[in-house]
C-alpha cells in the first residue's frame, strides 16, 4: 500500500521535503503513519512534532483526502490516499 | 576576562521584554523608566538593545566631578557611590552610548551592573529570542568568525 504525505511550513524545514511517499505492507492506521514518519525523519521526533507511543503533537493534524481527522489517530488509511500534515493552529 | 552584554540585531524583535525584566530585577517595579538596558528601533527593520559597554578608560568615570563613579579593575563594572553622587548628570552626557539613567524622584544615577549577584543578567534570561548574551570580546570574535566563514562555505557549496 502506498500513500503520500504532504508537508507545510515548519514541517518542510524539519523534513527538508515538500512531500513523502510512504509504503506499507498491508493496512495501517495513522499511528502507523506517524511511526513511519518518525523513522524517516527523526527531526520530527527531536522537535516534538511526533511524540512517544506513535502520537502526534496537538499542534498538528492529519487530513485524509481533504477530511480533517481530529486527534484520534485510529483512522485507517488506504492505498493512494493523499495525506496532509497541517498545523492545527489557525488564525491571522 | 571582562564580560559584557551584546545584542544580536538579527535575533532582536524589539519586544522590550529586556527593559521590563531589568526594571523588575533592579527596582522591583513594573516601571519602564527604571531600565538600565534600552531597546531601540533604529529603522523599521532594525532593532536592538544596548547597555553599558564597560569601556576601557570610561568617559563616565573621567567626567564625574565628585569621583562618584569607579570601575572595578577585574570585571570592568561601573559602580556608583550613592553618597558622593549629586545627580549633576555630567556622566549621562559623557556616556557615548547613552546608557546611564537619571530618573525623576532619584538624585543619583543608575548604570547596568550585569545584575551583580544574579547567576545570569535578568535581561539575558528573559530575552525570548536569545538575542542577548553575556559574553567576552574573545568569544564575540570567535562566534563572528565561525558565522561569517560558515556563510562563506555555504555559498561555495551552493555555487
Amino acid at each position: 500500500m502506498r500513500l503520500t504525505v504532504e508537508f507545510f511550513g515548519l514541517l518542510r524545514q524539519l523534513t527538508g521535503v515538500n512531500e513523502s511517499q510512504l509504503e506499507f505492507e498491508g493496512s495501517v492506521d495513522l499511528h502507523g503513519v506517524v511511526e513511519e514518519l518518525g523513522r524517516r525523519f527523526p527531526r520530527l521526533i527531536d522537535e516534538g512534532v511526533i511524540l512517544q507511543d506513535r502520537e502526534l503533537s496537538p499542534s498538528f493534524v492529519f487530513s485524509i483526502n481533504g477530511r480533517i481527522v481530529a486527534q484520534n489517530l485510529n483512522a485507517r488509511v488506504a492505498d493512494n490516499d493523499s495525506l496532509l500534515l497541517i498545523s492545527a493552529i489557525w488564525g491571522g | 576576562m571582562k564580560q559584557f552584554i551584546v545584542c544580536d540585531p538579527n535575533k532582536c524583535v524589539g519586544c522590550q521584554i529586556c527593559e521590563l525584566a531589568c526594571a523588575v530585577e533592579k527596582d522591583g517595579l513594573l516601571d519602564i523608566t527604571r531600565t538600565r538596558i534600552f531597546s531601540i528601533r533604529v529603522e523599521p527593520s532594525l532593532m536592538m538593545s544596548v547597555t553599558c559597554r564597560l569601556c576601557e578608560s570610561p568617559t563616565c568615570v573621567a567626567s564625574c566631578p565628585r569621583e562618584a563613579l569607579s570601575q572595578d579593575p577585574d570585571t570592568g563594572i561601573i559602580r556608583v557611590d550613592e553618597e558622593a553622587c549629586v545627580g549633576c548628570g555630567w556622566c549621562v552626557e559623557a556616556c557615548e552610548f547613552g546608557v546611564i539613567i537619571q530618573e525623576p524622584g532619584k538624585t543619583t544615577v543608575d548604570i547596568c551592573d550585569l545584575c551583580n549577584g544574579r547567576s545570569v543578567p535578568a535581561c539575558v534570561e528573559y530575552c525570548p529570542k536569545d538575542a542577548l548574551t553575556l559574553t567576552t570580546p574573545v568569544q564575540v570574535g570567535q562566534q563572528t568568525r565561525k558565522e561569517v566563514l560558515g556563510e562563506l562555505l555555504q555559498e561555495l557549496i551552493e555555487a
Partner: protein
Amino acid sequence: MYAYTGRVLHVDLSRQESHVEVLESDFLQKYLGGVGLATRLLVDNSEPACDPLGEGNTVAVAVGALAGTMVPASGKHALAAKSPLTGFIGDSLSGSYWSHALRRAGYDGMVIKGRSAQPTYLFVDNEYVLFRDAENLWGMESFATEEAIRAEIDDNRVRVASIGVAGEKLVRYACISNDRGRQAGRTGLGAVWGSKNLKAIAVRGTQPIPVADLAGLDRLSLELAEAAQGLPTAKYRVTGTVGNVLTLNRLGLLPTRNLRNSVFECAEEVSGEYMQANYKEKTVACSGCPVACEQVARVREGQYDGARASVDYETLYALGPCCGIGDFKPIIKAADLCDRYGLDTMSTGVTIAWAMECFERGIFTGSDTDGLELNFGNHEALIGLIERIALRQGIGELLSQGSKRASEEVGQGSEKFAMHVKGLELPGYEPRGLKTYALGLAVGTRGACHNRSLAYEPDMKGQVDRLKAEKGRGRIAMECEDLAATLDCLMFCKFIRGCFKDFHEEAVEFYRLATGLDLTTQDLKQVGERVCNLKKYFNIREGWTKKDDWLPARLLEEPLPDGGDKGTTLTPEELRLMIDDYYAARGWTEDGLIPPEKLAELGLEDLTQKARQ
C-alpha cells in the same frame, strides 16, 4: 487598585475639555477591559441612531486588564464606536507600545466625543491632556504622522495612534495605525476619527504599574513566555499566518477571484513558504510579546522596488488570491499603500475584487475606471485603485463606500457577489466548505469576521464535519464567540491561546496575581457571554433585525467551485437551521432578540431600563 488604574479619560473635542471618570473594581470585573470595557463605555456614552460620521458618534478605547505588566501578549487595546461601514458595532483591536503607554499614563480607557473645529491631535502626557493643532499633519501618511509628532515632542517614549489620508477623507473602511505597523483595521474607525478632525492620539505614559504579586506574576509570565517558543506558536514564528495559504489551497478552501474559485493556481507563489525564502526582511514583535509574529516583507527589484509591509494572511488573501494576484511584489506594495493611507487591507481587497468582477461582467467599462483594466490578476488595477479609494477620486469615490453600498448603488445584480455580511467584507476562509464558520460569519455582531467568531476552528480541526449543517452547531458557534470575547476582554492576543494547558484556569491566576481580584473560571466564561450579548444589544439598539444575519447570495446559490469537495452546497435552509439553532443556544427569541431574563442573568438588567426610557 492593582494593575487597573480605575480611571477613564473622557475627552470632549467640541469643547476641548477633558475629565476623569472613576471606575470601581466590581464594574471592571464584569467587563475586564479591552472589547468588553470599550463596548460598555460606548453603550453608556452614546445615543441611539447617531450618524457614525457625525458629531454624535462616540469612540471608546480600553486596554486589557494586564496592560503595562510583563504578562506575555497582553499589550493590546480595543476601540469601539458605531461603524460607518456597517451601522452596527465597530470594535477593533490593535497592540504593542501604544496599549501599554495608555495604562502607564494612568488610564484603563478613554471616551472621545464631539468634534474638533480644526484638525487636532490629543497629547495624553501622563496626567496632562493637551489639545494640539494638527493642521501641518493633516494630509500626512500614518508613519510620517507618528514621526512628526514624536519629533515635535522630542521623546522616543511617546507612542502615537493616527489616521492617514483615508481616515481624513472618511473612507468607510479607514483604519487607525499605531507604532509603525500595527492597525486597528476593521469597521472604519479611522473614518470616525477623521469625522471628528482627530488626526492622532499621542501618549506618554511613564508611571509604574503596581501589581498584587510581582514575583508570582513574573514567574508565571516567564513560564508562558517559554511555552510561547514551542510548537503552538510555530506557524506564527516560522512563516507567519501567511502559512495558511498552501493548506487552505490544498483543501480547496482558498477564496480566489471574489470567491468564484476556491483553489488558486498561483498559491505556491503567494505562500508563506515562498515569502520566507524570497521576501522576508525581519520579524518584529509587539511590545511585551515573546511570540513575535509580525513578518515584514520587502520588494527589492522591479517597479515596486522598496515597498515594505508586514504581511499577515488576511492581508495576503484580500490583496492576492481574492483579486487573482499571484505575485508578492504587487501584494506587498498594495499592503504598504494601505498602511500609509490608513486603509483596512481586507475591506480594500475584497471591495476591489467586487469591482474586478463588475468590470469582467461589463458592469463597469474603461470610461468608469479612468481606463484602468479591472481584470482579476491585473496588479496595475489593484495599485491604481488603492490610491483612488484613499483619495476618493474617480471610481474610488464609489469603492470608498465599501462593497455593500457600492453594490446597492450600482445594482445590476452586483449585490449577489458583494462579499460582505452587514457591510463588513469576508475573511479568507471559504464558507461553503466550513459550515460552522459560515454560521459564525452570518451571526457575528460586527459583520463577517473570523476573528470574533473563531468558528472555523472546530471545522478546521475536524472536531465536526465541516461539510454538514446540523443542529448543535449553534452551541459550538456560541462557545467559540464567547471564548474570543473573553480573550478580547482580558486581553490576551489570540496567537498565544494555544500555549495554555487550561486557558481559563491559568487566565484567572494571571488576573489574580496582577489585580489581586478573585475571578472564578465560571466568572471568566460569563464575561465572554456577557460581552457578546452586550454587542448584540448595541446592534439591536441601532436597528438590527433578523434579516441582517445572512450570507451573500453567491454562497447560497453557487456550489463550492473547486477542490476535493467541489460541488458542496450551502443552502438557505441549512443556514436558517443553523441560525435558529444559534439563537436558541444563546437563549434569544426566534427573532434573535435578547429577552430581559437573559440580560438579567448576565447582570445587564440596567439595559432593560435603558430600553424602556
